[in-house]
C-alpha cells in the first residue's frame, strides 16, 4: 500500500502562547510536528509493515509538509520514525489558509496517486479541522474522519475505519483510494491492522520514537522541495486571520479544607447547588 501522509509544523503547545500587536509572537518558539500528524505517520507505518520477530516494510509512506524551509527538520523527524520519503512545499506557516493547503495536497495527490491519503484530525494551532474534508470534496474521494481504528483489507483494496462520533463509534468501510483523518486513539496498541502483522501484535502506546538507527538512516532518505508553480497551484485564500487577542484570564480561586467547607461555598457563595 502506498500512503501519503500530511504533516504541519506547529509551535509546541507546552510553551506559553504570546500575542503581540494582535498577532502570534513566535520568537523563541519551538516547533514540533502537529501531534495528530505524528499519529498519522505512526498509523501509516503500522499499515505498511510486517512485525513478526523482525520488522519488514510492505508499502511506502511519503510525508508531505507545507511550510517554511525550516520545516525540513520536522519532516526529517518523520523520516527518522520510518517514513520512506518526504516532500516539502514551501509556504509560510501563517500565510496559507485551508483552501491553499488543500489545493497543494490535491496537486500532490494527483502526482503521487497514493492508495490512501492520511491526515491528522486537526492542527493544534489553527484548529480548523477542514483540510481533509476539503481535499476529499475536491477529489471526489470517500472520507473517514476522526479514526480511532483502521483495518486494511487483505486484498489492500479497502479500509474499515472506526470513527469517533458523538455518542459512540461508527464503523465505515471505504474503497481505496480514500481520505482518512486520525484521532487520538489511533495510536493505542491494537488500533491499526493490516493483515500482515499478526492481529495479536500489540504496539507500544503512542507514536514511536526514532531510534538512533532511524535517525542515521533519515539523513539519507529523499526529502524533495517543490514549489507552488511546479505543482501548478494558484489557489487564492478564502479565509483571512485579521487579528488575535488573548482570551479573558481565569483567576485561581481558593482552597477549601474539607467537604463541608466545599458544600458551604457551593451553596452560599457560588450558589450552584
Amino acid at each position: 500500500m502506498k500512503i501519503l501522509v500530511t504533516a504541519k509544523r506547529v509551535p509546541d503547545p507546552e510553551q506559553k502562547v504570546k500575542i503581540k500587536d494582535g498577532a502570534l509572537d513566535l520568537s523563541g518558539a519551538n516547533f514540533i510536528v502537529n501531534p495528530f500528524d505524528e499519529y498519522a505517520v505512526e498509523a501509516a507505518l503500522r499499515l505498511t509493515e510486517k512485525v513478526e520477530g523482525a520488522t519488514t516494510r510492505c508499502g511506502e509512506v511519503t510525508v508531505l509538509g507545507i511550510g517554511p524551509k525550516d520545516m525540513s527538520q520536522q519532516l526529517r523527524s518523520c523520516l527518522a520514525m520510518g517514513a520512506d520519503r518526504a516532500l516539502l512545499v514551501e509556504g509560510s506557516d501563517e500565510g496559507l489558509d485551508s483552501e491553499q493547503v488543500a489545493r497543494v495536497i490535491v496537486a500532490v495527490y494527483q502526482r503521487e496517486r497514493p492508495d490512501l491519503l492520511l491526515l491528522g484530525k486537526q492542527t493544534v494551532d489553527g484548529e480548523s479541522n477542514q483540510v481533509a474534508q476539503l481535499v476529499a470534496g475536491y477529489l471526489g474521494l470517500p472520507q473517514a474522519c476522526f479514526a480511532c481504528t483502521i483495518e486494511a483489507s487483505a486484498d489492500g483494496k479497502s479500509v474499515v475505519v472506526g470513527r469517533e462520533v458523538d455518542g459512540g463509534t461508527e464503523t465505515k468501510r471505504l474503497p481505496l483510494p480514500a481520505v482518512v483523518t486520525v484521532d487520538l486513539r489511533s495510536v493505542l496498541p491494537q488500533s491499526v491492522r493490516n493483515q500482515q502483522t499478526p492481529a495479536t501484535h500489540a504496539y507500544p502506546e503512542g507514536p514511536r520514537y526514532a531510534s538512533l538507527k532511524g535517525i542515521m538512516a533519515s539523513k539519507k532518505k529523499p526529502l524533495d522541495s517543490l514549489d507552488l508553480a511546479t505543482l501548478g497551484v494558484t489557489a487564492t485564500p478564502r479565509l483571512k486571520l485579521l487579528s488575535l487577542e488573548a482570551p479573558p484570564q481565569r483567576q485561581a480561586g481558593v482552597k477549601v479544607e474539607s467537604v463541608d467547607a466545599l458544600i458551604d461555598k457551593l451553596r452560599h457563595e457560588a450558589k450552584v447547588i
Partner: protein
Amino acid sequence: MSNVLVVAEQQHGVLRSASLNAISLGRALVAANGGGTLTALLVGHELGSAAAELARYPVDQVLTVDHPALAAYLAETHAPVVAAVAQQLAAEQVAATATSTGKDLLPRVAALLDAGMASEIAAVVGPRRFKRPMLAGNAIGLVEVLTSRVVVTGRQTEWPAAQPSAAAAPITATAVPPGPALGAEVLGLAQLPSERPELTEARVVVTGGRGMGSGENFKHLGALADVLGGALGATRAACDAGMVPNDLQVGQTGKVVAPELYLAVGVSGAIQHLAGMKSSRVIVAINKNAEAPIFQVADYGLVAKWEDTIEDLTTKLRALRSA
C-alpha cells in the same frame, strides 16, 4: 439581507438538540446581514417527528430531503444534498453546530460550493467576520471569509439553544438526489445508552482523570453526577486507558463544555483539557497534589484523595437534596 441555511440533525426521526444551537447561530447570521430568511434543513430518511419539532423554533421555513439512500449519515451522500439546497435557495450563508457530524460534513459542503469556511465560531462580528478560539483556547482569532458565500460551524457552548416561537414554521419536502456514496458504507454504530444528560448540555459535569485509577472507580463519580443531575466526563488519559468510553473526553480535541458547575476529580489540568472546560461558570478541583495545574483555574480547590472525599460529598449532597 441574506438567506441563511442551517443544517439540522436527527437520529431515528428524533431531532438532535444541537440543531437548536444551530438555529441561534443562524439567527445571529441573519441579524449580522441586516435581515433575511432562515431555513432549517433536515436530510435523512423516515424523519419522524423531527421536522415538526424543528418547525416550532424561530426559523422561516423547514425543508426536508427524505430518501432511502440518505438513511445512514454519510458525508459523501449528504454533502451534495446540502450544497444543492444552498444553491436552490441562493443561501449566502450555510451553518451548523460543530458536532461530529457538523465537523465532518460542512467542510465538504464548502468544497462543493467553492466557499470559504470558518470552523467552530464563537461570535458573529459581521456578515463575514467571526471570532473563533484557537491554540487550545489560548487565543481568540478574528477571521474574515473572503468568498461571497460563507460556511461556518459554531461551537455548541457559545450558542444557546433556541427557544420555541409562537407560530410554527411551514415545512416543505423537496426532492434533491443524494450524492453518490463513492463506495463508502456505514457498517455499524456502537452507541452506549446513557441515562445521564448529554455532556455538552448538562448544567453540571463531573469529570474524572487518570487519578481515578480504574473504570470501576468511575461509578463513584457516576453516583455524584446523578445526585447533581449532571453528566460524566473524562480526560484523554482516562479514555485512552479504557476506563470510560471515548466520547466522554472533555478537551481541545474532545467535547467542549461550559456548565454552571464543573467538578474535576483526579485531573491534572493539562492545557488540552483546560481548553475544553475553562468557560465553565464554577470550577471545583479535587486532587491529591496541591501543585496540580488544575487548581490555577479552579474557583474551589480541595487537596485530597478522591477515596476520602467523593462518597462523603455524594452522601451530604444527597441529604441536602432530599431535605
